[in-house]
């Protein structure tokens, strides 16, 4: 069992790093889209809501990450 524990921890650590990298990748919008020019809610640019959602997701992921590792 003790032999498996470090590799389980490594897998979990890798998962979290991957999660944060994916979130960072999602902010690099030029890799997968070009936004339509225009305004939306309250006159803000169309793409603003995308980044707000990513930011919230990041906080949720960070919250669960810190629950596990911030001791």
């Amino acid at each position: 069992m003790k032999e498996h524990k470090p590799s389980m921890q490594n897998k979990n650590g890798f998962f979290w790093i991957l999660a944060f990298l994916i979130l960072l990748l999602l902010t690099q919008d030029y890799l997968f889209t070009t936004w339509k020019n225009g305004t939306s809610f309250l006159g803000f640019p169309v793409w603003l809501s995308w980044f707000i959602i990513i930011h919230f997701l990041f906080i949720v992921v960070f919250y669960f990450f810190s629950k596990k590792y911030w001791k």
Partner: protein
Amino acid sequence: MVYVILIGYIAIVFLGSLRGAKKDVTTPEGYFLANRNLGTLALFFTILATNFSAFYFLGFAGAGYRIGYSHYVVMAFGTGFACLSFFLLGTKIWRLGKQKGYITPAELIRDQTGSLILAYLYSGIMLLFTFPYLALQIIGSGYILEAITQGQVPYFLGATLLTLFTIGYVWIGGMKSVAKTDLKQGMLAITLMLAAVMVIGNSLGGLTLANEKVFEIQPELFFREGMGNAYPPQKWFSMLIFWMFCIPMFPQIFMRFYIAKNLPTLKKSALLYGLIPLFISILPVIIGVLGHLTFPDLMSLEPELMKKETDQILPKMLLEHSPEWFAALVMTGALAAFMSTLDSQLLALSTMVTRDFILPYRKKIDLRQQVFIGRIWVVIIAFIGLAIAAQPFTTIFDMGKLAFSGLAILFPVTLMILRGGGVNPKFGIASILVGVLLLLGFYYKIISSEWLFGFESPIIVLAVSFLIVLLGKLVPNK
């Protein structure tokens, strides 16, 4: 009315900070670190207050005017993402600080590496690159006072008066005063910024209509790349990740990792720190963008004047679109933010000079003398900042960026010490020296920008610094 609001605010802040401040300020831990006993809200606001400063109020608004809404994402996500480094570095810094009684960043570096030279270099670089950021709080104060008194208090006089006032309450109360005022000033600044956006938006026919009007005359402000293609892909990537490397390296932030009551407090503060920029970063950017409706021609001014005028878009818009008393109130809140950053920087830097450079050579000085020497250095450092403020050399945002870039050079060494099993001191020293040389080489255009491959210079410099400390792992450390 303006003077009543200003003087009233100063009296409330000053008297409030004095109450109870005399206790526990006779020891270095009491004076410099508030006895390592700050709770979640106080810790969060004191960290936030040191970030949100002239760089936030004037810098973001100015950049909003020059670039548009993409600047909001850069600052909101970029700053929020930095809470990862609170975990990576902050938790270790807190633990080691508690165990070993560290007060300054260099004390940790010296003790963990055994290298005096690395510790001196680390402290010296922190001091050097904090000065531009310290100076821009003073510059911002001067701009704001000049604006709200409509020129009756000229720029440099205003800058000097606010500097002297800040010296006063830091002198008396140390970190306890600073933390108490940070909490009040932080809440005041956020509330007033929100009110400012509502009032200005309302004056322009409502936020939706105002944004749509700006879109008609300057659609590039609504492009994701920003006006004038300010954020092409490599720069976008650079600016989103840059902040996580530099924010924990601000000396006043580093030292705040020491002062949390416990780890859960630091964790909650980190979560708040990650979340709050999402809501508050947009406020000054909105005002900057809407500034095109009232002041449409600032970009066509000659470059030096354009920088100064766009950096003052926030007070200009307030004076144009709100009653004088309201403009004075909001700008007083902005002054609160500048002073809360300035006081933290003064305290952090004076602590570092006293303990890193003087104490090792004057071991016989007692604790009270240490605090006194710290106080003298508060005054000296403030006046150095004032001297820089006498002649601002670029926009507020760009001054801040230079300061942050220099501080970020310390991140690879710090990460390696705290999470990487230690650093070979020679390679640690090399990574910092090479980093500084490269940064200044790019800044003064001695090194061709072709070598940046489109990225911001701090990212390339960080990559080289990381490479150097990693190479050090391959070399046995005798």
